[in-house]
């Protein structure tokens, strides 16, 4: 299933991750952008504001709002009238949107929003982890996580296409690690206008708000019918599973770039140990795997690209015959002492014929760096699990015991 992505160096430029995303949004021809700055997302909306000022996003309204709650609320209206709508946020800003996130999904508005993943307060911390978006897991938003700035740029176009599909019509968060990806300068091919015009057709929803033909969105549903609305949303999420795969394949055919659909695999063939993770840590893990493979450690990577909808089947196919699965989480469900990807991976394996030990590590909280040595240590733990079974199921990584 792995597709080879050949990058043409002639077409690449070195830019900041935030610029790459802003450019991709411009290329997708949005009609409404709402913006409220918050570190480390700010550069994205700043770059979009420059594009607007330079007249490079025609037929678009850029709305400065007074809070993140308003940022998303404004898009509820604009998306309902049939405008392709975009915003970006992070951390406390995303949490302030919590109520509106449900409204957007419930009204089936295919808004796309970049989340520059950051820890949540208190204590105040502006650095990267995944607690902000993971905490919005059940709001009905598709969640995709990117490994590098090329992927998050390309993912922007894919997100609009997935969300706006008639069988999906659910909003999408494209998640990029704050600072690590939002502020990095590295080479990429900026999203191409001509191909994108063909890849992403104009947004033409079936039902729109129109004063000449008035409709009510998100109307009242009593106990007689509310369940059915929730069922429809769940069915749309299940439709998104296939759409995310199809869209990644179609993207590969047209652009020649592929970073996985629901998941991606790296050196998983013949692997005894599979590491599962999301986001920018993927690159570091790949380097560790290459190093350990030279020492004949049979380790591979399962990159989870879609966290919602959860790719249960795709994951099971990869880990079915391995000896141990290690799940890395940049988040924690307090009171469960485990991260979300670990909990959910374990849960999809229950009631199946797959019997593989799964261990979890919570790491990178609040921007704590994850060096290669940490991942090497975890893999040697996994080798120990292969020999003598699980001793600790889920744990904090690199905890400074002397501080607590």
């Amino acid at each position, binding site marked *: 299933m792995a597709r080879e992505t050949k990058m043409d160096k002639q077409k690449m430029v070195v830019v900041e991750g935030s610029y790459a995303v802003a450019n991709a949004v411009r290329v997708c021809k949005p009609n409404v952008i709402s913006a409220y700055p918050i570190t480390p997302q700010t550069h994205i909306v700043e770059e979009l504001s420059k594009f607007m000022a330079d007249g490079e996003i025609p037929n678009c309204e850029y709305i400065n709002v007074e809070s993140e709650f308003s940022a998303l609320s404004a898009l509820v209206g604009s998306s309902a009238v049939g405008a392709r709508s975009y915003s970006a946020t992070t951390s406390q800003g995303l949490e302030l949107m919590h109520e509106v996130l449900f409204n957007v999904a*419930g*009204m*089936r*508005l295919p808004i796309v929003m970049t989340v520059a993943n950051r820890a949540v307060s208190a204590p105040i911390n502006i650095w990267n982890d995944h607690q902000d978006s993971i905490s919005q897991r059940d709001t009905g938003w598709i969640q995709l996580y990117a490994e590098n700035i090329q992927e998050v740029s390309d993912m922007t176009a894919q997100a609009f296409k997935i969300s706006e599909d008639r069988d999906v*019509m659910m909003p999408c968060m494209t998640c990029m690690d704050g600072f690590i990806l939002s502020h990095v300068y590295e080479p990429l091919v900026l999203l191409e206008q001509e191909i994108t015009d063909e890849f992403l057709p104009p947004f033409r929803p079936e*039902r729109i708000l129109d004063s000449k033909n*008035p*409709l*009510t*969105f*998100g*109307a*009242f*549903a009593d106990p007689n*019918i509310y369940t*059915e*609305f929730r069922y*429809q949303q769940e069915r*749309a999420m299940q439709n998104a599973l296939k759409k995310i795969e199809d869209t990644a394949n179609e993207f590969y055919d047209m652009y020649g770039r592929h970073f996985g659909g629901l998941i991606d695999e790296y050196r998983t063939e013949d692997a005894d140990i599979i590491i599962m993770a999301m986001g920018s840590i993927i690159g570091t893990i790949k380097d560790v795997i290459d190093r350990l493979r030279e020492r004949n450690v049979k380790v591979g990577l399962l990159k989870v690209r879609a966290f919602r909808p959860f790719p249960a089947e795709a994951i099971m196919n990869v880990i079915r015959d391995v000896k141990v699965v290690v799940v890395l989480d940049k988040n924690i469900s307090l009171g469960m002492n485990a991260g979300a990807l670990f909990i959910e991976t374990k849960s999809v394996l229950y009631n199946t014929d797959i019997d593989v030990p799964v261990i979890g590590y919570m790491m990178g909280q609040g921007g704590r760096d994850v060096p290669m040595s940490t991942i090497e240590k975890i893999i040697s733990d996994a080798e120990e699990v292969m020999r003598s079974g699980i001793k600790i199921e889920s744990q904090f990584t690199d905890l400074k015991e002397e501080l607590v």
Partner: protein
Amino acid sequence: MKIVPGAVCEAGTSRVNKTGGWRTFKPVYDYDKCIKCKLCELLCPDSSVLPKEDGYFEFDYDYCKGCGICANECPKQAITMVLEEK
């Protein structure tokens, strides 16, 4: 009936639900005392005080729930709440 994704439906359907039947007291209007200050129209929570061409008002009894805010707020006591005969 099939439900529509996003709970999208025709707008203004609440018009068929005539809430005037909830009323116990109904407002009655004394034109002689009215100074056309519009407070009743402004404060009615159900948009049931309708302006007339001559600047005075009339009640939309189809939707007036008889809450009495208009009578309470009228500075000239031009509105009185009268027990509804049902």
